[in-house]
């Protein structure tokens, strides 16, 4: 029988995958993908706990996480386009200089 533990372990695995992506990526667009994976892992945990306690609070938080992710993508991709027009590359190491 599939219980809360299974879903939480799956969520932890997905979160670890996202975290590995954040640590090893140098391409900024790929970094965004990895953060999406981490947000989705959190959403799975929220939905599982909401189901386990028969409480809708977890689902509400998952909705707000989705709203935050959508606005993050809109602003982040705008910044990425500006950065690409300025520097011509999406390499993360170019940002270490912090020079416009």
């Amino acid at each position, binding site marked *: 029988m*599939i219980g809360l533990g*299974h*879903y*939480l372990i*799956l969520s*932890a*695995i*997905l*979160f*670890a*995958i*996202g975290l*590995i*992506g954040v*640590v*090893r*990526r*140098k*391409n900024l*667009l*790929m970094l*965004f*993908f*990895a953060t*999406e*994976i981490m947000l*989705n892992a959190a*959403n*799975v945990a929220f*939905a*599982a706990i909401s*189901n386990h*306690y*028969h*409480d*809708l*609070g977890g*689902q*509400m938080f998952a*909705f*707000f996480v*989705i*709203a*935050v*992710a*959508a*606005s993050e*993508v*809109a*602003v982040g*991709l*705008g910044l990425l386009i*500006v950065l*690409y027009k300025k*520097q*011509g590359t*999406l*390499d*993360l190491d170019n940002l270490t*200089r912090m020079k416009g």
Partner: protein
Amino acid sequence: MITFAFYFFAILISILFLITVMSSNVLYAMTSLAAGMVLISGLFFMLGADFLGVVQLIVYVGAVMALYSFAMMFFDTGKNVKEKNSSALAVFVLGGAIALLLVLIFAAPMIGHGQNALHPAIIDATNPQSVGMVLFTKYLVPFEVAAIMLLVAMVAGIILAGKKMDQSLSTMDTTEVTEESIRSTK
């Protein structure tokens, strides 16, 4: 049946997200990410969160991935950013250890003592109905704040991406672009 469905979804999602993280091709990474999002909505349906599953399909797979694929047209994804890692093992150990630590920290209060439902699900209402009831009573203020946040994000996206939209990089020559980047990096 539910056991089979869970393991089916779990294994497929893990594999697809691993492709996203490991692939050096942006297009492959984005496609597998979108497929993983679709399968995650399947998990939500299994958990009885119907409305959340539909929102996941519409917002993530419909809007966010479409935004990513539009943004990909701005970038020259053909030339890959070189990923130079000092040690792959260190990355894996570090990522796994940090994730395990975070999970333990957040799971500790839940294991420690039992918790009671603050907003118990209404028995004789479907999931979208009860979500609407809770969302428009207890969570009305966060809902409105989220609406304003989305508006601000939309304006920010338009202003950031629309700046100098008339002088696109694709109409410039490659020499011009490299000169531009050389000038800006100096």
